[in-house]
C-alpha cells in the first residue's frame, strides 16, 4: 500500500530538473572512469624490447560516454518520462545494430566503414550495449502501455508469480508427457545429429543430477555444496571395479549407488547439527576432500592421470563394437543391423534417460511417503519435527544417502560414457552448476529443473561459438532469472495429499 501511494505522490510531483539528471549521468560516467582507467586504460604489451605499457584512453572515454547516456536514460525512465526514453533508446539500439550488421545489410565496404565508427573494436561489447538499449526501450514502451506495472508492490508481483506457477502446474500436466515423448523420440528426430545427441546426453545427465540434489536441497532443505563428491564416488566406483575386475556396467551400477550412498552417510554424520551456511561450508569442504583424495591416492586411483579404458556399457551383454573380441555376437550382428557408431550414442542416451526418469519417479513417489513428508517438514522446522517424534538424525541421513545414491548412478553412467575419469571432472564448479539448476528451477519443482538444465547446460553448449562470453551469458541468464523469478522458474509446491480429493 505504501509503495503505491508513494509512487502516486511522485506522479503529482514535477519531474526532476535537468541539472539533477545530468548530475546523475556524470556520476555514473565518473564511476565508470574510476573502474576502467586502471583495467582498460593501461595495457601491458609484450613488445620486442620487453614489456611496455600502452594506453587505451579512447575505450575508457567511450565507456564513460555510454554510461553517461545509459544512466540518463535510466533516470528518465524512473522519472516516468517513458515518452522521451522510448524513441531515444530505440533509435540508439537500432543504430548500434545497423552498425554491427552493416556488412550483412549493405555489403562489405559500407560495413567496414560503419564498423570503424563503433566506439569499441570488439563487436561483443557493442552487442551488449545494443541489447541494453533495446531492453531500455522495451521497458519504456511497457511503461507507456500500462502505468500499473510500476505501481506493483512486491507482494503483488509474488502473488502473480504464484498464480503463474499454478497455471504452469496445470499446463505441466500436458507439458510433462509431451516433453517425455519428445525425449523418447529425440534421437530419431530429423536434424538430430551426433552433436545434438551428445548435448542431449549431457543435459539429461544434469537433469538427473539436479533431480538427485533436489532431494537433499529442495525437499530436505539441506544446502549441499559438495554434491559432485558423490558423483565422483559413483564414477570411480565403476571405473575401478570395471578396470580392475572387469565387472560389467550393470553389476557395477547398483554398487556405485551404494558406495555413493555410503559416502552420503559418511558426510551426513558430522554435519547433523549444522544448518544453513555452516552446513554449506562443510559440504563444500567434503566435496574438495574427495577430489583431493582422488588426486593424491596415486596407487589406487591413478592420481591426476585418472583411469582410462573403462569398459563401455553393453546391451544386456551385447557390445557395441564392429567385431566382438572372441567372435561372440555384437549388438548389430545380433539384431541383424549394419554397424554404426551412432548406435552406442543412442543407447547411452536412452540409458541416462531411463536413469533420470527412475530418479524422477522415485522422487515423486517418495514425496507422498512418510519419509518424504518428514524431509519437507525438516526443511520447514527441525524443532517442530523433534517435538513430533521425528528423528532429525535418521531423516537427514536418509536424505543425504538417497540424494547421493542417485549421484552415484549418474557417476557410473558418466564413467562408462567417457571411458575415462579424472579428478578434474569433479571440481567445485560442477557442484555449483548442479545447485544453480536446482535453485533456478525453483526448489522442489521437477519440471523447473528440466528447464533450468536445458537453459544452463544446453544453451551454453549450443552457443560454444561465443567462446569466453559463454560464461558471461551464463551469469547474465542467472541474474535475469533471479530478477524476474526470484523463487526460481517454477516455484510451486503441490500438496502431497488433499482432503478434498479423499472425501
Amino acid at each position, binding site marked *: 500500500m505504501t509503495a503505491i501511494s508513494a509512487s502516486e505522490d511522485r506522479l503529482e510531483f514535477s519531474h526532476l530538473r535537468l541539472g539533477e539528471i545530468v548530475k546523475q549521468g556524470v556520476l555514473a560516467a565518473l564511476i565508470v572512469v574510476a573502474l576502467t582507467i586502471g583495467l582498460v586504460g593501461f595495457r601491458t604489451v609484450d613488445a620486442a624490447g620487453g614489456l611496455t605499457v600502452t594506453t587505451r584512453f579512447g575505450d575508457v572515454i567511450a565507456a564513460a560516454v555510454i554510461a553517461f547516456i545509459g544512466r540518463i536514460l535510466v533516470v528518465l525512465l524512473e522519472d516516468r518520462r517513458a515518452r522521451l526514453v522510448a524513441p531515444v533508446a530505440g533509435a540508439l539500439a537500432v543504430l548500434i545494430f545497423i552498425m554491427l550488421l552493416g556488412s550483412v545489410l549493405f555489403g562489405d565496404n559500407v560495413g567496414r566503414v560503419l564498423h570503424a565508427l563503433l566506439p569499441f573494436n570488439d563487436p561483443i561489447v557493442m552487442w551488449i550495449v545494443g541489447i541494453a538499449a533495446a531492453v531500455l526501450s522495451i521497458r519504456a514502451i511497457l511503461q507507456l502501455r500500462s502505468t500499473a506495472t510500476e505501481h506493483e508492490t512486491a507482494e503483488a508481483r509474488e502473488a502473480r508469480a504464484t498464480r503463474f506457477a499454478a497455471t504452469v502446474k496445470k499446463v505441466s500436466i500436458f507439458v510433462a508427457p509431451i516433453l517425455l515423448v519428445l525425449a523418447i523420440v529425440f534421437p530419431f528426430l530429423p536434424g538430430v545429429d551426433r552433436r545434438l545427441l551428445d548435448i542431449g546426453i549431457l543435459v539429461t545427465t544434469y537433469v538427473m543430477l539436479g533431480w538427485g540434489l533436489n532431494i537433499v536441497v529442495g525437499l530436505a532443505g539441506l544446502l549441499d555444496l559438495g554434491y559432485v563428491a558423490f558423483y565422483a564416488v559413483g564414477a570411480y566406483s565403476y571405473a575401478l571395479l570395471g578396470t580392475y575386475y572387469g565387472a560389467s556396467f550393470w553389476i557395477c551400477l547398483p554398487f556405485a549407488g551404494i558406495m555413493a550412498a555410503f559416502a552420503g552417510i559418511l558426510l551426513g554424520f558430522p554435519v547433523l547439527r549444522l544448518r544453513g551456511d555452516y552446513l554449506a561450508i562443510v559440504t563444500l569442504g567434503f566435496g574438495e576432500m574427495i577430489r583431493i583424495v582422488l588426486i593424491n591416492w596415486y596407487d589406487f586411483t591413478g592420481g591426476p592421470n585418472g583411469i582410462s579404458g573403462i569398459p563401455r556399457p553393453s546391451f544386456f551383454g551385447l557390445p557395441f563394437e564392429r567385431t566382438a573380441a572372441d567372435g561372440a555376437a555384437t549388438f548389430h550382428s545380433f539384431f541383424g543391423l549394419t554397424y554404426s557408431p551412432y548406435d552406442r550414442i543412442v543407447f547411452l542416451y536412452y540409458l541416462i534417460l531411463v536413469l533420470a526418469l527412475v530418479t524422477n519417479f522415485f522422487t515423486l513417489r517418495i514425496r507422498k511417503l512418510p*519419509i518424504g513428508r*518428514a524431509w519437507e517438514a525438516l526443511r520447514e522446522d527441525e524443532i517442530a519435527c523433534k517435538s*513430533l517424534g521425528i528423528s532429525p538424525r535418521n531423516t537427514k541421513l536418509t536424505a543425504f544417502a538417497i540424494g547421493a545414491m542417485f549421484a552415484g548412478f549418474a557417476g557410473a553412467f558418466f564413467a562408462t560414457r567417457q571411458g575415462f575419469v579424472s579428478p578434474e571432472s569433479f571440481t567445485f564448479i560442477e557442484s555449483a552448476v548442479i545447485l544453480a539448476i536446482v535453485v533456478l528451477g525453483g526448489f522442489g519443482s521437477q519440471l523447473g529443473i528440466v528447464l533450468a538444465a536445458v537453459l544452463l547446460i544446453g544453451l551454453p553448449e549450443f552457443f560454444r561459438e561465443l567462446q569466453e562470453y559463454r560464461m558471461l551469458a551464463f551469469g547474465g541468464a542467472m541474474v535475469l532469472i533471479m530478477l524476474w523469478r526470484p523463487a526460481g522458474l517454477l516455484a510451486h509446491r503441490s500438496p502431497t495429499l488433499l482432503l478434498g480429493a479423499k472425501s
Partner: protein
Amino acid sequence: MASVEQNMSAERPPVLLDVEHLTIRFGGLLAVDDVSFQARRGEITAIIGPNGAGKTTVFNCLTGFYRPEVGRLSLRHPNGAEFLLERMEGHHIARDAGVARTFQNIRLFQRMTVLENLIVAQHNSLMRASGYTALGLFGARRYRDAEAEAVELARLWLDKVGLTPQADWEAGNLPYGAQRRLEIARAMCTRPVLLCLDEPAAGLNPRESHELNLLLEGIVGEGTGILLIEHDMSVVMEISDHIIVLDHGSKIAEGRPEQIRNDPAVIRAYLGEDDEAEIAPDLLPDQAGEEGIRP
C-alpha cells in the same frame, strides 16, 4: 503446601507426570531451582509466573530440548509403563513416552498444507506401516490403509479445531488464531498422554480464547493430561484444575485456582514487594489491563 496436596490426592485422578527436584542452570543463572510438582491424567495443570520465571525452561526439560542438571521426571502411562524423561532423547520423548508440545512462537510447517501438518505428526506409525519406505514405494495395501486411517484421525482433529474447510490451505496462510489451533491439533495427532501447551491463548481474542477453553476441556475429558503455560488468566483460572506458580526459577505456590488467587506470595511476585494485598485479584497477572482477564 505439600500437605495440602497430599490431602487432595485421594480424590484426584492418578498421577501422570512426577517432577522431582528439577534443577537447571545456564552458566551462572539458576533458571529452574529445585522445582517439584505433579500433573495428573485428565487434568489441566497450569504453570504460571512472571516473565523469566522459568516456565518454558521446565517445558524444554520435559520435552527433551534441555537436559536437567538435577531431577527426576517420570511419566506413568495408563498401561503402567514408566518413562524417565530426563534420560531420553528429544524425539524419543515424543515418540515413545507420548509427550507432545506446542511452542510459544508457533512452529508449523508453514509451506505444507494444514492436512499435511497433521499427517507429518503421525510420522512414526505411518513409517512402520510403510515398511520404512520399502513397502510404501510399491504402493502396498497396508500402507494405503494406514494412510487412510491417518487422514481419518487428521479429519477428526480438523473438525474439533474447526479447520476442515481450510484443510488444503498452506499452514502459513492461516490466520493467527487458526495457526494456534492447528498446532494443538497437530500435537494431538501424535496421540499423546501428556500435552504441553506453551501460551496457547497468546494473541487470541476473547471469543477465540473461550473456544480454546472448550477445546482443552474436551481433550482432558478424553483422559489426556495437559500441562499449560499461560498468561491469560481467563484461561488459567477458568479451566485449570491445579496451578503451579514459579518465580525466579523456584516454585512459590501451588494449589487450586481459588487458592492461588488469594495467595500472598503470588500477589507479591506479580505486583512487587509492596504490600498491596487489597488490590483486586483480577489485576493479579502481569498482563493486567489486557482484554480477557476475567477470572
